[in-house]
C-alpha cells in the first residue's frame, strides 16, 4: 500500500476512535485529555498497535497543536488585563510558584535526575490547567462566586509566568554553558518583554491588519501570523509556544473575538493530536514503573495547590468555605505540564520525565474536577460548620 494512503487510514481511524473517547468523556463529565493521552499510549511505542506511517503527521500536528493552544489562550486575555492582574495578584502568584514549583524541583533532584530535569519538573507541577479549571468552574456554576476572581487571577499569572519560564527552560535544556545560557535567557526575556510592550502599545494597530468580518482571510491571517511569530520565536530560543501566546495577547477587540471563533475548531483538532502524540512518544511500559512516583508527586503537589488557593482566597477576604472551594478547584494540571514535558523530553532531558509527566497529568486531570466538587459535599460543609462552632465556643470561653 502507498504510504500516503496508509497515513489516511491510520489518522482517520485514530481520530474516529478519539471522537468516541471524547463522547465518553462528556458522558462521564471529565476532560478528554486523559483519554487522548491513553489513546496515544495504546498506539505508541510499547503499546498494543504501534503506528508508523503517520508519525510525521502527528509530530507536525502536535507542534501546531501547542501553538494553537497557546494562541487561543492569549486571545482570551488582553495585555492590559494581564498587567492589572499582575499588579493586583503578585503575592498570590509568588505563593503559587513557591508552593508548587519547589516540590517538583525537589522531587526531580531526589530521583537523581539533575538540575535541568528539576527545572522542567518544577514547571510541570507548578502550572494548573486553565482549560480544565475554567470549565470546571463553569460546570459547577461558580462563575459568579466571590472566590472565582482569585482562582482566575492565579491561572492568569501562571499563564503569564509561562511566557518567561518557557524561554528559560528552552535555553536550559539545550545544555549550553552557564554564561551562554545566561545570554540566551536574557535575549529570550528581552524578546518577551518587547513583544508584550508592542502588544500593549500597538495591539490595536496589529489587530487592524485583519478584517473581523470575513472568516476565511481572518483564519488564514491569524494562523499565519501565529505560526510565523512562533517560528521566529523558536529561532531565538524563546519557544514557539510563547510566541503564539504573545500573538494572541496582541490581538484585541472584535478581531480577537472572531479569530477565537474561527480558530477554535482547528485548536480542538490539533490539540487532540498533540495529546495523542505525547502519548505516542511515551513508552507505556515505562509508565507502569513511574506510577508510584507519580502518585506521590501528585498527592504532594495537589495538597500544595489546595493550600495555595486557600491562602490566596483568605488574602482576598473570602470566607472559609470559599477558601476551600478556591483550593480544591486549582488541583488539575494539564496542557501546560505536557507542553513543558514535551519540550524537555524533546531535548533529551531525563527520558523518564515523559512517563512521569503523563502519569502525573493523568492523575491530576482526572482527580482535579472530582476534588473541585468536595467543598459542595454535605459532609464537608457539615465538617466546616462543626469546626466553626468549636472555634466560636472557644472564642467565647476565652472572652467571658
Amino acid at each position, binding site marked *: 500500500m502507498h504510504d500516503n494512503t496508509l497515513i489516511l487510514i491510520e489518522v482517520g481511524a485514530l481520530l474516529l476512535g478519539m471522537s468516541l473517547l471524547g463522547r465518553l468523556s462528556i458522558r462521564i463529565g471529565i476532560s478528554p485529555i486523559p483519554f487522548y493521552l491513553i489513546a496515544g499510549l495504546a498506539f505508541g511505542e510499547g503499546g498494543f498497535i504501534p503506528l508508523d506511517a503517520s508519525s510525521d503527521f502527528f509530530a507536525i500536528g502536535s507542534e501546531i497543536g501547542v501553538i494553537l493552544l497557546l494562541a487561543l489562550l492569549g486571545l*482570551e*486575555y488582553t495585555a492590559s*488585563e*494581564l498587567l*492589572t*492582574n499582575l499588579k493586583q495578584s503578585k503575592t498570590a502568584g509568588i505563593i503559587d510558584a513557591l508552593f508548587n514549583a519547589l516540590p517538583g524541583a525537589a522531587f526531580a533532584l531526589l530521583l537523581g535526575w539533575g538540575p535541568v530535569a528539576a527545572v522542567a519538573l518544577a514547571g510541570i507541577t507548578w502550572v494548573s490547567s*486553565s482549560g480544565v479549571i*475554567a470549565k470546571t468552574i463553569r460546570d459547577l*456554576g*461558580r*462563575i*459568579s*462566586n*466571590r*472566590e*472565582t*476572581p482569585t482562582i*482566575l*487571577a492565579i*491561572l*492568569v499569572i501562571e499563564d503569564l509566568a509561562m511566557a518567561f519560564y518557557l524561554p528559560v527552560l528552552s535555553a536550559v535544556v539545550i545544555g549550553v554553558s552557564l554564561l551562554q545560557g545566561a545570554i540566551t535567557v536574557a535575549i529570550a526575556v528581552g524578546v518577551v518583554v518587547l513583544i508584550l510592550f508592542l502588544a500593549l502599545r500597538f495591539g490595536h494597530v496589529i489587530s487592524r491588519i485583519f478584517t473581523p468580518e470575513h472568516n476565511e482571510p481572518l483564519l488564514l491571517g491569524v494562523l499565519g501570523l501565529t505560526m510565523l511569530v512562533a517560528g521566529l520565536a523558536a529561532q531565538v530560543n524563546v519557544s514557539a509556544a510563547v510566541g503564539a501566546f504573545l500573538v494572541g495577547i496582541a490581538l484585541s477587540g472584535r478581531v480577537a*473575538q472572531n479569530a477565537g471563533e474561527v480558530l477554535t475548531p482547528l485548536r480542538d483538532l490539533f490539540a487532540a493530536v498533540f495529546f495523542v502524540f505525547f502519548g505516542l512518544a511515551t513508552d507505556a511500559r515505562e509508565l507502569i514503573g513511574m506510577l508510584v512516583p507519580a502518585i506521590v508527586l501528585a498527592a504532594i503537589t495537589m495538597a500544595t495547590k489546595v493550600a495555595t488557593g486557600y491562602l490566596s482566597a483568605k488574602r482576598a477576604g*473570602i*470566607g472559609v*468555605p*470559599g477558601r476551600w*472551594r478556591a483550593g480544591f478547584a486549582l488541583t488539575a494540571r494539564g496542557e501546560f505540564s505536557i507542553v513543558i514535558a514535551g519540550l524537555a523530553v524533546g531535548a533529551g532531558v531525563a527520558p523518564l520525565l515523559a512517563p512521569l509527566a503523563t502519569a502525573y497529568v493523568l492523575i491530576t486531570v482526572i482527580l482535579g474536577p472530582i476534588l473541585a466538587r468536595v467543598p459542595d459535599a454535605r459532609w464537608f460543609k457539615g465538617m466546616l460548620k462543626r469546626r466553626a462552632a468549636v472555634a466560636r465556643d472557644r472564642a467565647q470561653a476565652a472572652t467571658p
Partner: protein
Amino acid sequence: MSTSPHGRSAPTGAGRTDALHNGSSLVTVGIRIEKIDLPGIGMRHDLVTESGRRLSVVSYRDGERNLGIFDVDDPDACRDSIPITEDEAEALADVLGTSVTLSRLTKLSADTEGLYTEQLELATDSPFINRPLGDTKTRTRTHVSIVAIVREKKVIPSPTPAEILRPGDVIVAVGTREGLDAAGRLMANGPD
C-alpha cells in the same frame, strides 16, 4: 460594558436627583456597586442590598449575562445563577428603573407638607399634542414642576422643554394643590 444594566441606570439615577431638587434626601446614599474583572470571561458587578444580601450580574465577553443571587449562609457562593438575554436584561432594567422612579416620586408627597405629586394623563385632544413641552409654559403659568414623563411604561426623567408631547403621555408634576389643578386644566384645554 456600557450596555450593562447598571451602566445605563446610573446616569438616569443622577437625572432623577436633579429633577427632584431636594433629591439628596430621597436618593438612598451609600449604594455601592462593585465591579470585578474576570479575566478571560468578562466582568461581574455586585450589589450588597440594605438587608445584607448580595446580588451580582456577570457580563460575559460574548454579551451573555447572568443574574446571580448569593447564599445567606455562605456569602461568597452564588446560590442561583440565571442566564438572561440582552432583551430580558433591558426589560428588567426598565421595570426596576420605572418602579424606583415612581416609588420615589410618590414618597415626596408624604415627606413634604403642602406639596403634591400628580400624574396628569395627556388627553388625545389636548392642544399640546405633538408640540414641545416648553410650549405649555407650565412652570411660568402654574408654578408646577414637571419631573418626568411616562410614555409607554418608560420613564423620561426631567424632560427638557424640547421634549415633544405624545397622546397618552403621563406627565408627572409636583406642585401645590391649586397649581396642579391649574396644570391639569392647562394640559387639557390650553392656556385660558
